[in-house]
């Protein structure tokens, strides 16, 4: 059962007018599916009641934002991508006196911790700052704690090794009660903050911007706006990294960038 397109418009309008969250340029097919899913999961008898709840109950908003945004992530996701980071990007950053990295749409932070491990192993973490942003303050709170479920560590450890990691992955965390807490020295160089790619601006210049599997949820116009925001935030010879099925091909910034290899990493050449 799908909610009608006109009803989706009403919900999006309410979220913007009442709470300032602007989803109108999100990819509609996915958004429609997620709103319909929320409607069914929470067993609303009618659309009118669903809408009333959103409008009248600001606590329910948390649930809506959580339901509309996808927070799926993992450590060393796409291991060959991380291998390319290790072998091609990190060595090029090593000569800099100071390294700034931005994880845009970092969700619960698994990829930020992965990056910190890569930098630590290259002996560069001490001179790096990792900015990690998301529109959702709830996921940032989780990221800040650096606590992840123990059951996922087997997969993450395999990913880590496939990415070229040489250490014992379990040395990076301590396990307790089905959770693991990552070494606090990894988090020392992380700065977490809310940032909305729809409405907020560039806030610094970076050597590497990572935004993986976030643009797939945007329509082409919002993708273009976001890529321009990244372009403003990347210094010459800096890098942009996207998700495995995302591309610069439809963007006006493409001519300024050169793709490194078949992984989705581009270098700003002009």
């Amino acid at each position: 059962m799908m909610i009608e397109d006109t009803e989706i418009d009403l919900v999006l309008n309410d979220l913007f007018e009442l709470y300032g969250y602007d989803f109108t340029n999100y990819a509609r097919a996915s958004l429609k599916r997620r709103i319909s899913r929320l409607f069914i999961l929470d067993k609303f008898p009618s659309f009118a009641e669903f809408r009333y709840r959103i409008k009248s109950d600001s606590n329910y908003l948390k649930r809506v934002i959580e339901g509309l945004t996808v927070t799926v992530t993992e450590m060393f996701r796409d291991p060959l991508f991380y291998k390319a980071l290790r072998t091609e990007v990190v060595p090029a950053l090593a000569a800099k006196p100071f390294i700034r990295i931005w994880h845009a749409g970092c969700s619960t932070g698994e990829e930020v911790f992965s990056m910190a491990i890569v930098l630590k192993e290259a002996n560069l973490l001490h001179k790096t700052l990792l900015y990690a942003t998301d529109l959702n303050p709830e996921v940032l709170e989780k990221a800040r704690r650096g606590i992840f479920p123990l059951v996922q560590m087997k997969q993450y450890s395999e990913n880590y090794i496939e990415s070229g990691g040489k250490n014992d992955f379990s040395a990076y965390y301590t396990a307790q009660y089905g959770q693991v807490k990552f070494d606090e020295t990894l988090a020392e160089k992380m700065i977490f903050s809310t940032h909305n790619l729809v409405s907020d601006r560039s806030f610094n210049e970076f050597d590497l911007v990572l935004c993986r599997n976030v643009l797939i949820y945007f329509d082409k116009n919002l993708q273009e706006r976001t890529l321009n925001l990244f372009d403003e935030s990347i210094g010459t010879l800096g890098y942009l990294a996207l998700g495995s099925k995302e591309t610069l091909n439809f963007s006006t910034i493409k001519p300024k960038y050169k793709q490194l290899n078949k992984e989705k990493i581009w270098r700003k050449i002009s």
Partner: protein
Amino acid sequence: MAENKLENTCKAVIIGGSAGSIEVLLKLLPALNPGLSFAIIIVLHRKNSTDSSLADLLSTKSTMLIREVEDKNPVTPGVIYLAPADYHLLIEKEEVFSLDDSEKVNYSRPSLDVAFESAADVYGSALVGIILSGANADGTAGFNTIKKAGGTLIAQKPETAQSSFMPQQAILHAPVDFVLDVPEMAAFINSITTAN
């Protein structure tokens, strides 16, 4: 049964399958006429390997262009699209693909139900859905959505499928229009070209 021919115009054929469906495609694709006037969209359950060569393998069997979908690729007639592993495949109203890495549906990503429902929403009666061999019931709910939107449903003849469960579920629980073996399926798809 009515003649195996489509009455509606057709903008896309969406094919879903799981275990045993690659073998079917290796027979079906070479039998298709080049220059089809609609897109073919293939959604398969497959293992998420970092270096997938399925699109390359299928390309050796067809003179048509076969592309693994990247986000926001336009849906172009005459092209065969393959859903990438580990993403749900959706279609936008302006006929571009959107990918989605949210939670699995029916233990699957891509899920046939998700892709079928999205395609039905965009193409309505101009959509043909096909379910091939497979060992779970993903696709049946999506089949019902396609029919509700006026589309046409085809299931692989279960006795010709390596895993008959998936087409059987579709036949039992959705108003399937045609139950076809692989040569009949190819003839059906080719006849759509000439009909338009």
